[in-house]
């Protein structure tokens, strides 16, 4: 097998192992964190609550939420952080200033 073919096979393997497209199909509305600071968690475990602290958002950080479409569990809302562009959970009462930017 030539080096080119070997490289192509390897590349195919990498492509197939890559994660699926992580884009947001339901585009969240623009909002901001209106708490002085808000914990941002990786997941919400229905058995134990928010799980895996990612970072702490500061007041005014740009976030996104789609009321009615994205779930809110026990006051924890699925939220998009427009900083690193990733999803997580934060307190619903810390989400405000919808469509302000």
């Amino acid at each position, binding site marked *: *097998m030539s080096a080119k*073919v*070997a490289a192509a*096979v*390897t590349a*195919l*393997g*990498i492509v*197939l*192992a*890559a*994660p*699926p497209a*992580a884009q*947001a*199909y*339901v585009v969240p509305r623009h909002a901001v964190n209106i708490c002085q600071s808000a914990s941002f968690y*990786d*997941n*919400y*475990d*229905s*058995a134990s609550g928010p*799980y*895996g602290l990612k970072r702490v958002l500061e007041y005014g950080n740009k976030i996104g939420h*789609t009321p009615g*479409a*994205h*779930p809110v569990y026990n006051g924890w809302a*699925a939220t*998009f952080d427009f900083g690193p562009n990733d*999803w997580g959970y934060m307190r619903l009462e810390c989400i405000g200033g919808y469509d302000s930017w």
Partner: protein
Amino acid sequence: MVTPSSRSTRLARVVVATATAVALLAVSSPALAANGTIGVRETVCAESLFVRTEPLGAWMGTLYAGQTFQVKGPRSGGYIYGFAYGHVNRNGWVQDGWFC
């Protein structure tokens, strides 16, 4: 002119090339993720797999490689319904085709 020795050399090259191709395919095959089987608790092969409220719906959690998903069905638009274990622990929809 083809001599017996050059023919055997060529044969040896073909054998080596074939063996290399088979070895490479064998190495790359674990990366080939498959569709989920209904009724089976599948393991996620993707680095991360979004769990959604519905096909193409809102994000509600993320499964990572090695975590599991109990496939319940039905299928719809390239997505499949089931129970996401890991640190999601809820029913939801994931993109099909990312299971080991």
